[in-house]
């Protein structure tokens, strides 16, 4: 099963990330990063392990509540992983991830679960070590709000729900594209009324 955020039949482009359910892989360490409803994917991951206690003993989970407030820390605490770290927000989680990565060795498997904002930013940290991004497992759960970079002022707006939306930095009206940058860990927002200023289509809630 492959899940995408695009409605069935809607055209997309190749840079649009796709997400598959997490699967246990052989590893000396399992590094798991999740937010919000991603905790459910983590619980399901351990449910698939051949040797659950060995996997738990070699697992480290970094978790933060989702942008919609969902906090499933209790379910993760009940798992009994070797190390569980709960951060209040994604920006607070990322320095901890960088610290863990600085001491990690090859043989580590990476599992990311939750919102695209969390997945993208954690993937970027992992990718910056030189680890192949294609080998990082990702499963989308929960909110579909997007992290969008304004291609004009370069400012990033978190948790974008509507399309078009006003850039939180420069105030331009931005159309949210499926064009995704792994390096930015963000979707691209492009000015929608450049030719006819003020001619802005009605904003609709596309991401929840």
């Amino acid at each position, binding site marked *: 099963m492959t899940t995408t955020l695009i409605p069935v039949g809607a055209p997309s482009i190749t840079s649009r990330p796709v997400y598959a359910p997490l699967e246990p892989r*052989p590893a*000396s360490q399992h590094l798991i990063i999740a937010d919000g409803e991603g905790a459910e994917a983590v619980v399901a991951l351990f449910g698939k392990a051949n040797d659950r206690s060995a996997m738990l003993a070699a697992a480290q989970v970094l978790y933060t509540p989702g942008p919609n407030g969902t906090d499933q820390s209790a379910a993760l605490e009940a798992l009994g992983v070797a190390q569980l770290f709960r951060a209040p927000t994604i920006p607070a989680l990322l320095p901890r991830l960088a610290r863990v*990565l600085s001491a*990690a060795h090859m*043989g*580590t498997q990476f599992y990311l679960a939750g919102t695209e904002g969390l997945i993208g930013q954690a993937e970027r940290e992992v990718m910056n070590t030189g*680890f192949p991004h294609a080998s990082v497992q990702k499963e989308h759960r929960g909110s579909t709000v997007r992290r969008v970079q304004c291609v004009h002022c370069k400012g990033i707006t978190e948790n974008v729900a509507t399309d078009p939306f006003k850039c939180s930095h420069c105030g331009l009206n931005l159309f949210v594209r499926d064009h995704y940058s792994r390096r930015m860990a963000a979707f691209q927002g492009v000015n929608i009324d450049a030719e006819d200023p003020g001619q802005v289509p009605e904003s609709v809630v596309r991401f929840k």
Partner: protein
Amino acid sequence: MSGGAKLQVRVAEVVEVNELIKRFRFVARDGSELPAFSGGAHTVVEMDDQGTRRLNPYSLMSDPEDRSGYEISVRRDEAGRGGSLFMHRHVAPGMEMVLSNPVNLFALDNRAKKHLMIAGGIGITPFLAQIAQLTHFGGKFELHYSARSKPLGAYMDRLTAAHPDRVHCYFDELGQQIDLKRVLANQPIGTHLYVCGPKGMIAWVLSTAESLGWPKQALHSEEFLAPGTGLPFQVELAASGKTITVGPTQSLLEAMEASGVDAPYLCRGGACGQCETNVHKCDGTILHRDHWLTPEEQASNQKIMPCVSRFEGKTLVIDR
């Protein structure tokens, strides 16, 4: 013309490295600079062996920054088809030869934070160029190099002298072997692994790494296959309307070329995929010997790599 534009070169130097290995240096006949290449690239050397045309791929081992010439090292294979013996016996300084442009199927992934290299025997050659390249750019590497004996450990002296803390040598005759699991377990995240050497060693290194959780995208290997000998067989070339016989020491690709068919190729060692050919009809068994087709494609008998693979049976018709 298949194989791309050629480089017209002259042999500048032939050096006996040890009892099995000779090093050859080529320079452009017109004195110009040779095309740039990157560490891990190979060239296909054309040989005219008393009327038999031989084309063998060899890794470029010289510093990629040095465009005044290319260097290769050739291990003499007494039981081979004759390419290495021709290089050892007949190639002398001053001789004019033809090379292909460099092709790299074993490049460094420069996104890696560290490069772990594992070489066996003559498999050291691509690493010599890669290490020169990394030295210019300041990249991190660690080399584990095994040879049968000290005298057969080509270039070990220069490698250990230049990089005493990064080069580890092992000798089969002293019973030494790399502690592979330990070496693999100690690599920082973001390390890529490169292995070049005998088939058994490559398979052992790759399978051990995968079982320890190394991702496939961080594993790189190169092995050039000699086409391998076998029984003669007949092949029908559908596009050219010819039926040819492939001799016991000839490859299907060489037989096609000998009959005047311009078939595509690059590496001639079953690695690059350039010569992939559709099979129209196969009444018999294709002896797949390449690294290119997937096991499923090989089992389907709908494709063949003429540079290394052979056929046994009644009828083989290919789209060439």
